[in-house]
């Protein structure tokens, strides 16, 4: 009835309780909240939270700030995802070969991924403020207004920051995938007279395609959950909301302004959007 080794149930029970409490129940609650006029009340107080159908959703979809946030995240993904795939694959292939100082390179590529975004944002602020090193080096070429307060540049800077920050993790994924590309294929390509770049395109790239699907999926999910960077790097999604992300908006609407129903609806739209983008990506990547 409980399987051959029912003691296993005892072993997993804390984890199951954890998943139900922290994952399944809140997920259900999010769906429920998005269809109700939910508001905060003191613990234990019974209040009426009427069912409002799709009201929260129509409010969310009709809100220009929300639409701007979704457009921002689209801009973010268009920059971040291709850049992540290309750079991490190139660096992983370079790292995969026998090279001197390998440990040094590995450590230096992973360090941004391992360290707190809050801390690293601090130094990016220092580098990219209007009076910072980047503008000093660029001199007259520095953008006006400066990077983080420029409506056209704020989101791209955030996207590049996140690409840089996460790259180590994706390099790790590609390094693992590269171990599975058969060496014979490179030898065969060489026998056929393929150049190094040709071998990269015809052997490496198709060889790591499953990893690419995974990288695109994970980069999309991470990107869709952008919060810390616009909150700190561009001072809460500025200028003029051109770097606001949906999660930042969820925080502002749900907790600062006390409208968790609306925030939950933004979350649901975001999940559906991410799923749709992922399905399209998968179709495109796994074609041919």
């Amino acid at each position, binding site marked *: 009835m409980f399987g051959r*080794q029912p003691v296993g149930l005892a072993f997993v029970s804390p984890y199951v309780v954890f998943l139900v409490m922290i994952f399944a129940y809140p997920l259900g609650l999010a769906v429920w909240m998005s269809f109700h006029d*939910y508001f905060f009340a003191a613990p234990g107080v019974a209040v009426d939270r009427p069912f409002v159908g799709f009201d929260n959703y129509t409010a969310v979809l009709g809100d220009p700030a929300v639409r701007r946030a979704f457009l921002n995240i689209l801009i973010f993904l268009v920059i971040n995802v291709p850049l992540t795939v290309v750079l991490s694959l190139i660096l992983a292939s370079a790292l995969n*070969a026998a090279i001197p100082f390998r440990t040094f390179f590995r*450590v230096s590529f992973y360090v941004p991924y391992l360290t707190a975004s809050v801390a690293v944002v601090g130094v990016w*602020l*220092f580098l990219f403020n209007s009076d910072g090193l980047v503008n000093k080096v660029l001199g007259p070429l520095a953008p006006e207004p400066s990077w983080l307060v420029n409506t056209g540049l704020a989101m791209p800077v955030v996207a590049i920051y996140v690409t840089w920050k996460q790259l180590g993790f994706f390099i790790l994924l590609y390094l693992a995938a590269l171990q599975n590309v058969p060496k014979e294929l490179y030898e065969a390509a060489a026998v056929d007279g393929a150049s190094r770049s040709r071998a990269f395109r015809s052997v490496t790239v198709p060889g790591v395609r499953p990893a690419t699907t995974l990288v695109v999926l994970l980069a999309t999910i991470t990107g869709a959950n952008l919060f*810390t960077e616009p909150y700190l790097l561009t001072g809460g999604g500025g200028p003029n909301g051109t770097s606001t992300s949906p999660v930042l908006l969820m925080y502002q609407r749900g907790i600062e302004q006390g409208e968790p129903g609306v925030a939950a609806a933004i979350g649901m739209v975001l999940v559906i959007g991410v799923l749709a983008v992922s399905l399209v990506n998968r179709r495109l990547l796994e074609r041919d």
Partner: protein
Amino acid sequence: MATTLPPVGQVTVISAAPPVPDQRRRGHPLRLVALTLGALMFLFPFYYMLIGSLQDEPDTTPAGALPNPGNLTAANYSDIDDRINLGRTILNSGIFTGGVLLGTVVFGVLAGYALARLHFRGRGLLFGFMLLVQVIPFQLMTIPLYVLIVRNYGLADSYLGMILPFAINSTAVFIFRQYFLQLPKELFEAAHVDGAGELTILLRIALPLVRPALLTAVLLTFIGPWNEFLWPFLITKDQDMQPLAVALANYISNVAARATNPYGALLAGACVLVAPVVVLFVAFQRHFVSTDIGSGVKG
């Protein structure tokens, strides 16, 4: 594109496009250049963080990127300590991280072991669930979790409230499972014949054999809560309860508006937040190998 192939057996020293990407060759110059440029781009901000944290007067000129003995000070560290109480916030970060590590090592190992080696009802379902958790991002759960933990359970400004959503790291459970799966079946059969119970087998036989996995999982789990910002930020309004990352972020967002010279102190705080992770990673980096993640990719 065709290049003439060297005779078989001839050692290629250098050529425009060597036909076989020889794994043993000591570094193609172009590859080394690319890697070095990459490493510089990755490391420079950290170097600049350290330099900036030691500057008496912020110097953003290119020359300021080099240490200048006339402009060095440790005052920024005491300055940030005055503002966010480093000792207290590090303690909070430590308790938060320690709680998550404890939960993950105790309950995560139990779950990983059961998922790998025990046959019980619902195992497949639980495994699927565990994978699903890793794809559904935490931020989406933020609002309902906030309602649940802060409003319903009244756990705002408490360590328990901070720890709960991260108490068992699913990625670590997955790593544990993969490692327990790799152990030879005969080992367990022998232990069963000797009449050992499952808990004894886990503690006496399986666990000592997967010590490297334990270390990897502990390292991976450590950086989660230590670096986490959004969740503890949401539930701690009391400054005495805030982890270092949250206190530092509040400092950044509050002083960014009135910016006379907040950078020295800010970067000093950043260095304190980054240092433990970098030290741990450099010390244990040889354990932190791509195959661990690889086991995740291959399923």
